């Protein structure tokens, strides 16, 4: 891969993601104030003192945005990766073995999908202790139903190709067929889905925080910050738009990079459309 062949849009996307990660990793160093420190009046406008102004309790918005990146990125990323791991494994097993295993997994998946995600999450999270890993696990399992749907559809298409049959004829086991024959060919649509699901995970996390079941205050997260400052909109205070904009920008950046990866993998190594 040559650096020159990367289009400018991908550079912008990667820069955006890198910025978010740097903010998350070095939050204590970068943030001008503490995460929970009240440093001024409520909803102060932008100025040299507070670059992005202050929030509904008088905390520095920029500092909270930087600290919020930590929670938001970590939870959304962990939940997305976990949901893909679960979804891909189960869906590929279903697609390769077919028969009763496929029926069982697919109907179970339908059952999960038929319950509205948010209500499901509310019930489960209200019943379980409020721990970060439980939150991540619940988000991941709920999201994995969507990944399962897509993964199974893609894998069924690939599983009927001659090269998969050739592998079966050779006597290869299911693990080899799933991870070495099918997965590399299913990567393009799954990567695209990953970009989308990551963005949704950020939004879902903020919804949960809004309802009081996600990240608990005073810990900062972008979705929670939108909620905290949303009342300000009525008074013409734009504080809620800043974390909202950060969520949007991150989602766009992730999708730009995924788009480019998709194009690259399909054009170089002979994807079905290249």
């Amino acid at each position, binding site marked *: 891969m040559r650096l020159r*062949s990367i289009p400018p849009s991908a550079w912008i996307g990667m820069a955006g993601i890198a910025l978010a990660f740097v903010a998350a990793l070095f939050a204590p160093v970068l943030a001008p104030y503490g995460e929970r420190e009240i440093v001024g009046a409520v909803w102060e406008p932008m100025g040299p003192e507070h670059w992005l102004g202050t929030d509904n309790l008088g905390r520095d918005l920029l500092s909270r945005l930087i600290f919020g990146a930590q929670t938001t990125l970590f939870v959304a990323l962990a939940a997305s990766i976990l949901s893909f791991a679960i979804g891909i494994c189960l869906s590929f097993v279903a697609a390769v073995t077919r028969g009763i295993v496929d029926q069982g997994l697919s109907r179970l998946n339908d059952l999960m999908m038929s319950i509205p995600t948010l209500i499901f999450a509310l019930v489960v999270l209200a019943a379980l202790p409020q721990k970060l890993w439980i939150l991540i696990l619940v988000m991941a399992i709920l999201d994995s139903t969507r990944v399962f749907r897509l993964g199974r559809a893609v894998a069924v298409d690939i599983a009927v190709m001659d090269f998969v049959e*050739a592998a079966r*004829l*050779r*006597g290869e086991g299911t693990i080899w067929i799933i991870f070495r*024959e099918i997965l590399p060919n299913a990567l393009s649509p799954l990567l695209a889905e990953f970009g989308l699901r990551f963005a949704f995970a950020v939004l879902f996390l903020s919804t949960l925080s809004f309802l009081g079941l996600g990240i608990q205050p005073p810990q900062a997260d972008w979705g929670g910050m939108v909620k905290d400052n949303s009342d300000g909109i009525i008074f013409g205070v734009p504080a809620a738009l800043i974390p909202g904009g950060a969520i949007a920008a991150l989602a766009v950046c992730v999708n730009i990079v995924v788009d480019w990866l998709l194009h690259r993998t399909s054009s170089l190594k*002979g994807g079905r459309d290249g």
Partner: protein
Amino acid sequence: MADLLEVRDLKIGAHAYEEDGSRREIEIVKGISFDLEKGRVLGLIGESGAGKSTIGLAALAYGRGGVTITGGQVRLDGEDILALSPRGIGRVRGARVCYVAQSAAAAFNPAHKLGDQVIEGTLRHGIMSKSEARARAAELFGILGLPDPETFGNRYPHQVSGGQLQRAMTAMALCPRPDLIVFDEPTTALDVTTQIDVLAAIKRAIEETGTAALYITHDLAVVAQVADDIMVLRHGETVEYGPTRQIIEAPEEGYTRALVDVRTTSKPAATDQSGALLRLEGISASYGSGPQVLTDVSLHVPRGQTLAIVGESGSGKSTLARVITGLLPQSAGTVTFDGETLPPRLAQRSKDQLRQIQLIYQMADTAVNPRHTVAQIIGRPLRFYHGMRGKARRERVQELLDQIEMGQGFADRYPAELSGGQKQRVAIARALAAGPELILCDEPTSALDPLVAEGILSLLMRLQKETGVSYVFITHDIAIVRAIADSVAVMLNGRLQRFGPRDEALSPPFDDYTDLLLKSVPEMKEGWLEEALSSRRIASGGQ
């Protein structure tokens, strides 16, 4: 008489993408010129990539998928159609120039009746009223020899056969009384026994309607039956252009001669055909609870020899291969390999039994994993069956690459970076890597150009000589059977029609079906079509 179609110095360009993603202009048609008079047929012939379809579409002033016409003129009745506005071109396409595609099944909308689709273009151009168009369509269905011409249009595409669909498409093209029709490989996807009917129907329709035609194909024997003139193309350039008789009887260029005498591989059939490596006895099989696909098939393959299985699509020849490999367990009968009975199911067979029987597919594109390099593809059986690793495996891969005549520099390439013939060679190397006793070849050459296919055939024959491997060669091409088989099995509707040593199986007395099959294979001479059809009519009692 003025020419209907004049093509002058036609140049067509396309974009190619380099490995680093940069774009490059390439010329795929490099200054082609020809004339076509009213009522004449010009055959365009060449391998894939020769630019023949692109030229055909240029007669409709159309460039497909990123292809642009960069220079030259296409004059229809003296008018340069390349210079027309989009509206002007719209008036030409589907009215004065029509197109018949290779795959009629993909060209018809399955949700609409055939009759409505056949007259759609004619109505759209306002050439005829609906009732006139319907009458015209019925008349054309009659000329094309379709059953019940009056009511044929009421059927849906899935209710008719592939050959009938192809004829319906020809009717669609003829309906608006065009001056010119472009036929793009109209019979390539059909069985030989169907091809001859469609070919005859097209020829009669062209004669009776007096339209001119461009006939594109890669099969010289087919085009010799319908074309008045032939243009041989290669890499976007004219190799030879002349009357049909001259091209097939006295070709001037070396490349044309190669196309005419394409079949150079041949070997005498083995005389001793006792001692079976593979023996099938009373094999019957079906898919799920569906109808029986194979009924009571018994045959054997001697060690180191080639058995050719011929038949049309749907005759069960590929199903037979699936039974032998264990992908489809038989419902009755036994498969014996090297003296031991093979378990019907793939899962019950031992690794060594799996190793001894390998399969080569028709479509090399889908038979090799597009995300694995050549070294990974060929190296996997070495690791899997023989436990080879690291340097030893690397060296063996190179040895195999040398054996399939590909040599250095291919090991790290992906299949997308190989040509069709090279992909098929890699698939052969993968089969060889296992060290098999028997290789099942399921139409390994039918998706390839004649000269490339010839290379694959001679490679297979050489490998047989070197390694003593046996082949079961599934094909619909009688010429291949004549060239390489030791014994022949003819299949029809899942039953074995004929089985025996080649020279015996392919000489009279024939059963009806084998006779029909042999007579349907196009021969490279003028007038073959008429001869074949008349002898067929005599055989079937003048019906």
